[in-house]
């Protein structure tokens, strides 16, 4: 029987976190309450090397060792070796990893004790820490109308259950809708996304709430009460026919968010021609009437009486749902933070989202690449009157893999940069293209093949990142080390594209607080279990999909969107769902351990 095995506890309190969030002294005390734990040590007690550990094993005749802490696997091989040398079973080295099982929230001592108790008793926490099941409301809330949210919403709707899809902006589609082509197959993003958007709009089980935000979440898993703020669109969604007469007459302009600021839109606008819902909305900040009470040009122009109501106020709706799927996506890294690349300073230094719009057939230049220029009012925009660039540089890892900005890799930039190179070649066959990269991360299905293909095309792919961009006359000057050729590469180009990384959305922290879930240091939502439950959270009935959990590409987002839906449909079919992980008390875990110890599992 496992319980009688003499166990040595080793607390690996060497996480590198300052201050260490874990109360090791209390855990040490707690582990001694188990009679099979005869000794317990921390990393600071003695030098953890083979000799000392072997001595401890032999002195105490440990039959089993538990290493507990953050990333205890770091030292596992040392213990396995010591056990093997001592002539014992190296497989008896167990890890009580505090990174698993809802990492962020479990740093509380109570939660860690639950894990420890299970581990020491030899019964996996997976069996002891199971929360109660609660009845579930069949309706589901999906927050975020990007590709992940769309996928999750459709998936649930296919099972004939109601879905509320709440989207912050005026249209669903998210970032993907702004892209021209997708890597590596180069099929056009709109061609594959717009049918799904249309389907969302047409599906009888999906209630689309665009231009709305989550204000408050109350209730418990299976029965959440959510307050949704419906921002005043000032255009009646039911009666608007999307004719665009209002926008024609509107005298106020603002940079178009959908076009990443590469062109101007009116104060009454539709984000893009294929927007869903295909209805106009008013940008209150730039509307002249809302600023100084005079204008109403749109109201006069509108052919539908009463459709535009500039005095409409924000309203609030309360909905009851059983499950919530978070698909809030990402925001691009703000390239202004990296002053050395001159973004915002030199007009022809672009970030990748701007360049996507430039490439897009429905973008400001109809898919032609032109230099940025100033319009009459001084706005920096793109149009087709300016010359086309002849030399372009693409800089990878802008804001990513950098301790000064974001330490993590943004996962998609390498591939979209390669895609850019290809599309530039296609549109400007005479152009010279330079790509500066560190490591080429073309890891997905068909990605390596795509990289190979771009290498065969006449693109200079240079290992070695540039340090800065300088403006020299009309041109941009870059200096870099071509590592593979062992030379300094000095280039004068017309346009520089910064492959900016992905960052957690600005509402992520707010939402995390509202939903009582955790994020990691970078602001990405924490999953329930890194490997086994990448779409769950430690709260019952709340799931993650897409880039709000961490950067990922479209197929991975879609897979996650569907995966998040799996749990939702499952709970509806069963009629019950699991409560929060934290709802299980230590007593419950201990009781469960006792119960399971007596029956074989």
């Amino acid at each position, binding site marked *: 029987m496992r319980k009688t095995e003499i166990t040595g506890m080793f607390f690996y309190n060497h996480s590198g976190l300052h201050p260490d969030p874990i109360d090791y002294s209390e855990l040490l005390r707690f582990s001694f309450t188990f009679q099979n734990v005869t000794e317990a040590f921390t990393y600071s007690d003695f030098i953890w090397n083979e000799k000392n550990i072997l001595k401890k094993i032999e002195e105490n005749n440990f039959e089993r060792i538990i290493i507990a802490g953050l990333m205890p696997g770091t030292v596992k091989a040392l213990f396995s070796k010591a056990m093997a040398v001592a002539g014992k079973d190296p497989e008896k080295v167990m890890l009580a990893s505090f990174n698993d099982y809802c990492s962020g929230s479990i740093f509380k001592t109570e939660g860690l004790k639950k894990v420890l108790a299970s581990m020491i008793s030899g019964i996996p926490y997976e069996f002891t820490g199971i929360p109660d099941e609660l009845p579930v409301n069949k309706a589901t809330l999906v927050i975020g109308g990007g590709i992940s949210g769309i996928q999750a919403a459709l998936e649930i709707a296919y099972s004939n259950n109601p879905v509320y899809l709440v989207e912050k902006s005026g249209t669903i589609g998210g970032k993907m809708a702004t892209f021209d082509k997708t890597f590596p197959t180069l099929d056009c993003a709109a061609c594959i996304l717009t049918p799904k958007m249309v389907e969302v709009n047409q599906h009888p089980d999906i209630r689309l709430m665009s231009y709305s935000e989550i204000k408050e979440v109350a209730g418990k898993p299976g029965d959440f009460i959510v307050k949704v703020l419906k921002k005043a669109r000032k255009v009646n969604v039911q009666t608007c026919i999307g004719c665009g007469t209002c926008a024609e007459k509107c005298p106020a302009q603002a940079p178009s968010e959908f076009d990443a600021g590469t062109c101007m839109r009116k104060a009454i606008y539709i984000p893009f021609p294929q927007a869903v819902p295909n209805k106009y909305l008013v940008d209150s900040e730039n509307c002249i009437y809302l600023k100084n009470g005079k204008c109403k040009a749109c109201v006069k122009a509108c052919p539908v009486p009463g459709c535009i109501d500039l005095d409409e106020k924000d309203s609030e709706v309360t909905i009851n749902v059983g499950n919530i799927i978070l698909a809030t996506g990402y925001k691009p890294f703000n390239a202004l933070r990296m002053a050395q690349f001159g973004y915002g300073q030199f007009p022809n230094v672009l970030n990748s989202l701007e360049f996507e719009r430039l490439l897009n057939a429905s973008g400001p230049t109809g898919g032609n690449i032109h230099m940025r220029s100033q319009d009459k009012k001084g706005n920096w925009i793109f149009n087709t009157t300016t010359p086309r660039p002849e030399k372009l540089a693409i800089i990878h890892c802008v804001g990513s893999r950098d301790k000064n900005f974001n330490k993590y890799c943004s996962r998609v930039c390498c591939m979209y940069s390669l895609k850019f190179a290809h599309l530039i070649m296609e549109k400007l066959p005479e152009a010279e293209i330079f790509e500066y990269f560190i490591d080429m991360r073309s890891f997905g299905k068909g990605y390596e093949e795509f990289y190979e293909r771009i290498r065969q095309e006449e693109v200079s792919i240079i290992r070695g990142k540039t340090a800065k961009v300088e403006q020299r006359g009309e041109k941009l000057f870059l200096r870099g*080390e071509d590592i593979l050729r062992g030379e300094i590469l000095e280039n004068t180009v017309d346009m520089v594209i910064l492959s900016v990384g992905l960052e957690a959305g600005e509402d992520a922290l707010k939402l995390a607080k509202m939903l009582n879930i955790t994020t990691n240091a970078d602001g990405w939502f924490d999953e329930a279990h890194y490997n086994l439950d990448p779409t769950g959270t430690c709260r019952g009935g709340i799931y993650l999909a897409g880039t709000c959990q961490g950067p990922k590409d479209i197929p991975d987002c879609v897979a996650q969107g569907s995966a998040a839906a799996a749990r939702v449909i499952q709970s509806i079919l069963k009629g019950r769902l699991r409560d929060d992980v934290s709802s299980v008390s230590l007593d419950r875990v201990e009781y469960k351990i006792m119960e399971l110890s007596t029956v074989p599992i």
Partner: protein
Amino acid sequence: MSTRVHPELRNQLMQFGIGDWNACYHCGTCTAQCPLSEEGFLFPRKKIRLMQMGLKDELEASVEPWLCYYCGDCSTSCPRDANPGELMMSLRRYLTSIYDWTGLSKKFYTSELWELFFILSFAALVVISFLLVLPSMGFHFTRELTAEGGVQVNAFAPIHVVETFDWAMALVVASLLISNILRMYYKIIWKYGNMKVSLWVHIREFWLLIFNFAVQPKFNKCDDKRYWLSHWFLMSGYTIMFIVIVVYLPWFQTERILPIWNPQRLLGYYATFGLLFGLFVAIFGRLQKKEIKFLFSHISDWLFLAMLTLTAITGILIHIFRINGMPLGTYISYIAHMAVLVPMILIEVPFSKWSHLAYRPFAVYFQQLKKYAVPR
């Protein structure tokens, strides 16, 4: 022919102040950032690579570390905290120890106890010689120390004795330094690579050596121009002092106090100002730790700064006491001055930090030779 990698070199290099250089993931930002890095002489990244792999011969044949003036931009922009600037600095220490055939340099760099021991021994020797040797040469403490006797530096420290000693010291230091430079030449030009440099090129490019010594134009290529000036002041002050003390001592150390506009005093004042200004920037920066180049200071850096400061201060004290006719103060300062100066010159110039005075211009010269090298 393949070169064997030597991971063990890491342990050796670590002693020269290099921290964890493995953090570098070779993005190339540092090289791109560095305006001094040029075709054929790429750094810092490439040197980090050599260190990571422990390619000893390649490292020893590098001139690049001497081309770096440590503006610190590479370290600021490094995405991985690999601190390339400090790595280059450490590499300079390592190379200094490699050029030195006596092995003392390595001892001094790797053990502060050794360095301190040597410094203190030399200082003690100086003090003892003053206290024991001088009286035997007819210097009477009782008489000469009173104000009535006036300040008689040349009597206190007989000029011909000091001058002889100076020359002897200079000779020792110079021969050590020259032999080290020859070793440097051997490692960089002679031994490494299949290349040949004609004698004519040696002669033709010699001006670079002088020019770089006097002006340090490379330093001025750094994006941050502020430190070029302070460094130049320090360097020129020190050099002037060194020359007047060693070569023109009878002219410089006169009994009579010359008028203030006399070149002797003006030169002295300039040199003092140069030293103090340079020192102030270096010490203040290191204490403030605002800039990356000042963040990591090896013990040898501090010792060097401390000794130079002490030399300057004691030198100023001598001057003040002398002008004001205070013999006792003058003499004590003089002994103190010598007690600092002698070990500093003997240790720092051939074995430690000061040696860069010679290595840097020579490195530029050797770099130029390498450019004109033809395959053998």
